[in-house]
């Protein structure tokens, strides 16, 4: 067993769970706004209002009786995604890429029947995948067509880009690649590859699997340092605008690149995990403190007041915030 001293971690600026919960989530995320991200249906409707790109909503299943004849609706589509509206951590997401006769083909290639889909929907409605077991609804949405640039980088699953957005400023990004070990899932602790991305250019900085530094994808052996995300600025702006949409100060945005439609927002997370730091080989804290200090110096504290007049970001436009971040935190220009 190997341990690291807490002082060393602190010097490196690693954000710990307690610090994240109290000083960022607790302070910058207003409770009343949580449902906007915890309920994916709300996020989706809100994103439509704000014109943020998200996979299109096909329909919603909210009643048990609708499930009995659901095949009439589903047979119209080639591929679709089933999601619980209040799911967390990717639980309960079923990706159907196509059909093979009566069977539906999952992303892994496995085929399932309509009965399996019905059971999945029943479970979702009963709240099996929702945060505290509360009744839920099923969202059926468009399937993402993956951008070819990730060819050979992902095993089965969806390569998605997680960007932590603090007070509207995207501060750190990583690309999550599913592997054979992670069983097609994009969670780092299950064995997915985390690729730390340069916030200035979308290039690979550092990559890890099971917290160990790696250079090539473990399944396809493709060199990871060649990764460069296209449309980077556009993608960052999409992430930054999520702040304007939700008003939540500390969020994780999950974005995927669609072949034809460009960056698409997949979901938001009001309690983003800490493994993005492992993927980047760098702590979040210095960047978060930098943004805090920048906002504080911009809104000067008036004499006799203990707080600045506002803690809104000084750059009102998402584009300006992204440019500020690219200038300040970017490595490769």
């Amino acid at each position, binding site marked *: 067993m190997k*341990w690291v001293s807490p002082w060393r971690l602190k010097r490196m600026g690693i954000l710990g769970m307690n610090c994240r919960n*109290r000083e960022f989530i607790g302070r910058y995320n207003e409770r009343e706004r949580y449902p906007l991200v915890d309920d994916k249906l709300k996020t989706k409707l809100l994103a439509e209002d704000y014109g943020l790109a998200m996979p299109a909503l096909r329909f919603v299943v909210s009643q048990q009786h609708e499930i009995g004849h659901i095949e009439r609706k589903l047979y119209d589509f080639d591929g679709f995604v089933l999601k619980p509206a209040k799911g967390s951590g990717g639980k309960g997401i079923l990706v159907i890429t196509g059909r093979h006769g009566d069977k539906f083909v999952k992303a892994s290639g496995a085929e399932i029947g309509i009965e399996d889909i019905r059971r999945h929907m029943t479970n979702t409605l009963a709240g099996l995948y929702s945060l505290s077991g509360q009744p839920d609804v099923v969202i059926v949405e468009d399937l993402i067509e993956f951008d070819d640039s990730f060819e050979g980088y992902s095993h089965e699953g969806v390569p998605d880009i997680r960007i932590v957005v603090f007070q509207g400023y995207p501060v750190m990004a990583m690309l999550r690649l599913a592997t054979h070990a992670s069983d097609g899932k994009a969670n780092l602790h299950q064995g997915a590859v985390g690729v730390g991305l340069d916030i200035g250019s979308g290039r690979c900085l550092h990559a*890890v699997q099971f917290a160990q530094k790696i250079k090539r994808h473990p399944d396809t052996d493709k060199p990871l340092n060649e990764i460069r995300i296209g449309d980077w600025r556009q993608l960052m702006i999409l992430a930054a605008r999520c702040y304007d949409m939700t008003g939540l100060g500390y969020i994780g945005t999950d974005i995927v690149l669609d072949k034809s439609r460009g960056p698409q927002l997949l979901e938001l997370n009001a309690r983003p995990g800490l493994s993005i730091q492992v993927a980047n080989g760098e702590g979040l804290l210095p960047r978060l403190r930098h943004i805090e200090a920048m906002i504080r110096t911009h809104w000067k504290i008036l004499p006799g007041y203990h707080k600045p007049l506002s803690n809104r970001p000084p750059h009102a436009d998402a584009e300006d915030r992204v440019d500020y971040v690219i200038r300040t935190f970017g490595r490769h220009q």
Partner: protein
Amino acid sequence: MNQMRLPFYLIIAALVLGGLGTAWARHQAMQIPFFPNETQSVWLVEARIDFFALGDSVQVSFDLPAGPPGFDIFTEQAASPGYGFSIVEHNGERRGEWTRREASGPQTLYYKAQFVAEPDTRDARARDDQAPRARDVYWEEPEATAANQLLEQALQTSSTPESLARELSKRLTSSDLDQNAELLLSSRSVASSLERLMNQAGVPARLSMGLYVEDARRRQALTPLVEIYSDDRWQAFNPVTGQQGIPENLVLWHQGSQAYLDVIGGRQSTVSFSMIRQTVPALELAKAQHSDSPFALLGVYRLSIEEQSMFKLLFLLPLGALVVVFMRVLVGIKTSGTFMPILIALAFLQTSLAPGLISFVSIVGLGLLLRSYLSHLNLLLVPRIATLVVLVIFLISILSLVGYQLGFNTGMTITFFPMIIIAWTIERMSILWEEEGPQEVVTQGGGSLIVAVLAYLLMQLPLSNHLTFNFPELNLVILALIMVMGQYTGYKLTELRRFHDMVDDAPDVPEEKRP
């Protein structure tokens, strides 16, 4: 931020001070011990009254100590077959009265009392409302002359009532008595002479009887004492030794001029005392002695035993919550369900550890097997969990019956496990198994069990049981600790491991230059 922190720390300080202060005050006022199994010694004194009954109705009146300075009466009882007994209080005097319609021949009566030493009350004696006055003393000649002369000599060599008493007792007890003293003592005891002389000198004085307590003594008699009134209070004197004040081991049994034993209908009455030192639990003593104290309202001793035992468990819960908070915030152990471990720990308290662990693991294991079958049936969530609850009840009943048939008494205690919680645990673990794999189930299940076992170990300590039950206000301190941990923003212990590999990669040495 500082504006917010100050009130917070004030609240924390108030909670800690309030908890500790109340506990200390109750410890002081009610003598509730801070440690379990603390014992205190008590003196068991037995007074034996022997007399010869004359065949008629008998009434025996015996003076009983009433709040003797330096001691408290813990229990008292009279044992005397055939006699009616009652305690009569009159003018601050307590007398035990034994009565019988008819008795003849030798009779023996017993009075037993347990005395607890209370050094604090040795000097605090009930004051009389008005200062007593010296009584008039009449001597017959030639005693009167002798007394006058003795008093005159003593007055010349003394200045205060106390020094007068000392001088007189010296003269009455010296090895070569002068004629006056010899004359007085020819018909009276030293104590009686001293009492009369003091009264004659205008100092209020009275005779008292005290009992020296020493371990395992039999057939002891009361020791006469003279109390003189000076400086607004009664002060005891041992006329023989001249010692002033009441020694630690002396129980003031009888005060005043009335005889301490009156026997009507009998003769040749004698009193003798035997005593031994006993130890009793200090807690029992405190409960019995101070049940009327205002502080007793804070305790739960007045409730029925059944309610008390419920409170006993209730007051232990904050300790379990503290363990959970510590393990999750500072250590960072994953548990399945936040406070599930406390409930498991409470169940362990009933079943004891090893049988509890074995039965818990087997119930959850069997439950997971059943649940894996249930998942094929495609039931709705709530009916599925309800099914699990019923199945868990069956499992527990079967396990306890099997355990009972096999001769394990502990089998029955499995029923203490919270069924609903177990059903939920099984459900969660099963979902965890399907989604994250068995490793995560072992991690979270093991984490829950570790936290439960730690909470159990802490809660079953006699000390924590004793403190939380007898000083429930100490839970305020636990509350303060929990709140302080709620402010912790440092790293968890597990994070020191989680981010370890990151630090290894961190050195800024370029890749090429590494060996």
